[in-house]
């Protein structure tokens, strides 16, 4: 659902709660598509919604609420990548404190999901953002450019490059499977 509400209509707690309900599932999804490890998705999603809450006051409705939130997801994911040392330390640290077994089971039932993530991992962040928002989240290219903070033509270039790279990876994998 795409909302195009002006800021005052989103001021109340009830509206924020509705906004949360409308958008939380896709925020969780897109953060993973953007490369956030599953163990970090909850915390990063919290940061997205705190940013949404703070930013409501400056949201003027020039884009849809959804496009705006996608942009925040892109920013939070980018910020997470910059804290690369966090992930490096995590790789050798103790296992996660609490594992949501139910969620983990549901997640692992479909092996295609991790396969998709591995494929997306082969893209650099700029191309990945554009590809994910266009092909998986089905934003228009203009919305993709807004969310990524780049010119429209740049967004197109990144999408074409991402497609080309993914096709190459896919064919390489096919060749390996045939051997």
């Amino acid at each position, binding site marked *: 659902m795409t909302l195009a509400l002006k800021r005052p209509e989103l001021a109340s707690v009830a509206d*924020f709660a509705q906004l949360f309900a409308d958008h939380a599932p896709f925020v969780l999804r897109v953060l993973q598509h953007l490369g956030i490890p599953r163990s970090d998705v909850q915390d990063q999603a919290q940061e997205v*919604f705190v940013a949404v809450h703070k930013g409501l006051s400056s949201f*003027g409705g020039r884009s849809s609420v959804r496009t705006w939130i996608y942009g925040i997801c892109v920013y939070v994911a980018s910020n997470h990548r910059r804290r690369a040392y966090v992930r490096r330390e995590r790789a050798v640290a103790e296992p996660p*404190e609490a594992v949501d077994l*139910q969620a983990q089971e549901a997640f692992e039932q479909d092996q295609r999901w991790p396969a998709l993530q591995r494929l997306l991992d082969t893209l650099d962040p700029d191309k990945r953002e554009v590809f994910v928002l266009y*092909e998986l989240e089905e934003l228009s290219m203009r919305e993709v450019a807004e969310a990524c*903070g780049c010119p429209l033509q740049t967004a197109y270039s990144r*999408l074409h490059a991402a497609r080309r790279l993914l096709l190459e990876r896919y064919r390489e994998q096919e060749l390996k499977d045939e051997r």
Partner: protein
Amino acid sequence: MSAEPKLPRWTESGSDAPAELQELLRTGRAPLGTTRELAQLSQGLAGLLQPAVGLSAAPLAAAAASSGLKLSRWLAWAAAGVGGAAAVWYLTTEPASAPPPSQPPAPHSQPIPAEPPAAEPLVAVPVEQVVAEPTPEVASAARNKAPRSAPRSASGSSEAELLRRAQSLLGTNPARALELTAEHQRRHRNGVLTEEREALAIEALRRLGRTQAAQRRAAAFEQHYPNSVHASRVRGTLPPAAP
């Protein structure tokens, strides 16, 4: 404005993408977030935002239920989690602190960029500028970087988790809560929760009896975030205005 040229998506019929690749991409469109994950997320948010805006379990629960969550499971989580978080906050917060206004702050005070977000950090004012005179603990912690090999919690480095731990310790161990805010300051210099961190640090200082340090930091907070949703609570730390 020129019309946007139509570029068929890979998953659309007639796309030249291989069928297997199309199928893989369709997998990625499935809704994500189990009932439990969404409940955990809303629980964490209520813990972070509730003190500021009065957000509680009820509206999030209702909204979550309307979005398709199973109500019975939600209520179990809400009772155990969000309600508990709200109770912890109220039990550990100055009773005299009036609840902050539910009206949103003025736009100019907010560091979150207008849509679409640009490359600017969400919190534009570095904390180093906010805190004119770092407390000894903060300064010391900032100088003494933790060794990279030091063991730590896997979730302990995230912004939200650090501040949740700090908040939970405010009542029982404000010194440790203050240390955690210093750790947050060190690790997440341009994080999105710096306002929340500063509000927690001020409250921790007040509970430690370090009134002057709390007041200095509160004054800096007021100056940089005059319309923060945490302003009224922080304002309670400041000395009363002279008649």
